[in-house]
């Protein structure tokens, strides 16, 4: 039972003082059930805004979003959405295992995996009783991922989860994330600033342009899975990277800058 996400003609305006800004302009796209999609675009193009609308944190100004057959509010209330923020945002007074237990406590529900199994899934066994302050940034994000998976979400939304990590750790985390995604059968959406990360992870890379945020291109990544780090050096990979880069910098390339 996998769930797709449909974004239909969604626009989002924010009122700032007396003026208004159009953060997203008429974006339509579909994240197929069980797929892994990446969203890439310059800062301020509305990536976080789009993710927050899918998670029912904010509402679209116009247009609609469907998660499977449900609007985001219903999907959120039935715990179909797992969200990983850019900062791990763990509760510092709770241990690792208690942070992973939080969704279960709040909802009085249990996922198919126990909190212990989730900690194991993200490779943190032995650290169950550690406090967040005792973990590295990468370990904290793993806890955040385990927490997002606690109630078997159908969709996993990740807003630059590894943005603050160094290159080496990020590559390792990405490989693990793909494994976790396969094991949990979720529809994953990853927001990223890194072209190679987007291509390495996704089935489709959606490129957004800024001011206003629009969908500039959707590039299918037909690289075989499972993906290994050796892939980063292949020609096919580099060609796809260039394709994404061309879409990202279309304006600059056209104007010869």
């Amino acid at each position: 039972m996998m769930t797709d996400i449909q974004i239909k003609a969604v626009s989002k305006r924010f009122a700032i003082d007396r003026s208004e800004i159009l953060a997203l302009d008429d974006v339509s796209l579909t994240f197929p059930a069980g797929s892994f999609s990446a969203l890439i675009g310059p800062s301020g193009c509305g990536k976080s805004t789009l993710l927050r609308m899918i998670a029912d944190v904010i509402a679209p100004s116009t247009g609609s979003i469907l998660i499977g057959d449900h609007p985001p509010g219903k999907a959120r209330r039935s715990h179909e959405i797992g969200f990983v923020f850019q900062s791990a945002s763990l509760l510092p007074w709770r241990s690792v295992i208690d942070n992973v237990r939080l969704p279960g406590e709040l909802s009085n529900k249990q996922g198919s995996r126990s909190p212990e199994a989730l900690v194991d899934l993200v490779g943190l066994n032995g650290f169950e009783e550690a406090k967040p302050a005792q973990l590295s940034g990468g370990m904290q994000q793993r806890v955040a991922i385990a927490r997002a998976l606690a109630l078997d979400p159908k969709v996993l939304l990740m807003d630059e989860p590894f943005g603050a990590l160094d290159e080496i750790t990020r590559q390792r985390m990405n490989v693990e994330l793909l494994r976790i995604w396969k094991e949990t059968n979720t529809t994953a959406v990853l927001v990223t600033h890194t072209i190679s990360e987007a291509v390495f992870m996704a089935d489709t890379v959606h490129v957004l342009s800024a001011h206003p945020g629009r969908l500039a291109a959707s590039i299918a990544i037909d690289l075989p899975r499972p993906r290994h780090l050796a892939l980063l050096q292949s020609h096919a990979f580099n060609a796809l990277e260039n394709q994404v880069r061309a879409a990202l910098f279309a304006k600059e390339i056209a104007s010869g800058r």
Partner: protein
Amino acid sequence: MAADAMVGHIGSLVVRRLPPLLLLVAIGLVWEAAKLGGLLPITVPAPGAVWTALIDHGGDLVYHSIATLGAALTGYVAAIAVAAALAGLAVTWPISERPVFTLAILIDSLPLIAVAPILMLWLGNGTTLHVIVAAGAALFPLLVGMIQGFKSTDSTTRELFHVLSASRWQTLTRLMLPNALPAIFSALKVAAPLALLGTLIAEWMGTDRGLGTLIIYALFSFNVPLVWLSILTVCALTAVSYALLAFAEHRLVDWAHPRGTTGGRST
């Protein structure tokens, strides 16, 4: 091994506590000598005289301290309850934040020493007055600390609770309250001496029992060592309240001092 560590621990404790203790003893000796040499005015007693006063008036001191402590503590707890209710109101119902603050500022801007006599006219000079003045003195820092503590929750974590469909009550108790604990403890530490001070001021209006009464009595009978002794007792009570709160804070909010900053345990 463990015994070695134990000895080491006690050793380091002595090494840490010894210099201030020695300093205190030295100051006492110099003071006593200065008094004997006639270098100090009559309003400053020798430490020995204060000590004698403690032996003579120890029972009185306990008798009056209990009354003061009881009123201060009751007022303090009442202030905590009122501050918690008002802060909860201000945080869960943002429109009420300004009126709540205005009220608190109003109460805080009233000079206690001027208000106490008016209150005395209404309430008589009994325990009720002492408790109310103590509560009034402690309320403002408690309220500010609680509201700021509650509001310091970062927006991402609140979004997390929203995505997890947490109820308002769950958000308050599982997120905002624990998050506010460091700020609340700071406020508790500031407010405790204020409650004590409020009680003393109220007692000065004239009552038959309390440290404030004892100070006035000692003053008018020109018993200088007893004045000093009463004041030292107030200082000691303040110090003890601070130490108790610091201990509770250390126990409850250990997460607010991440790795190593609390000293001691190293990993």
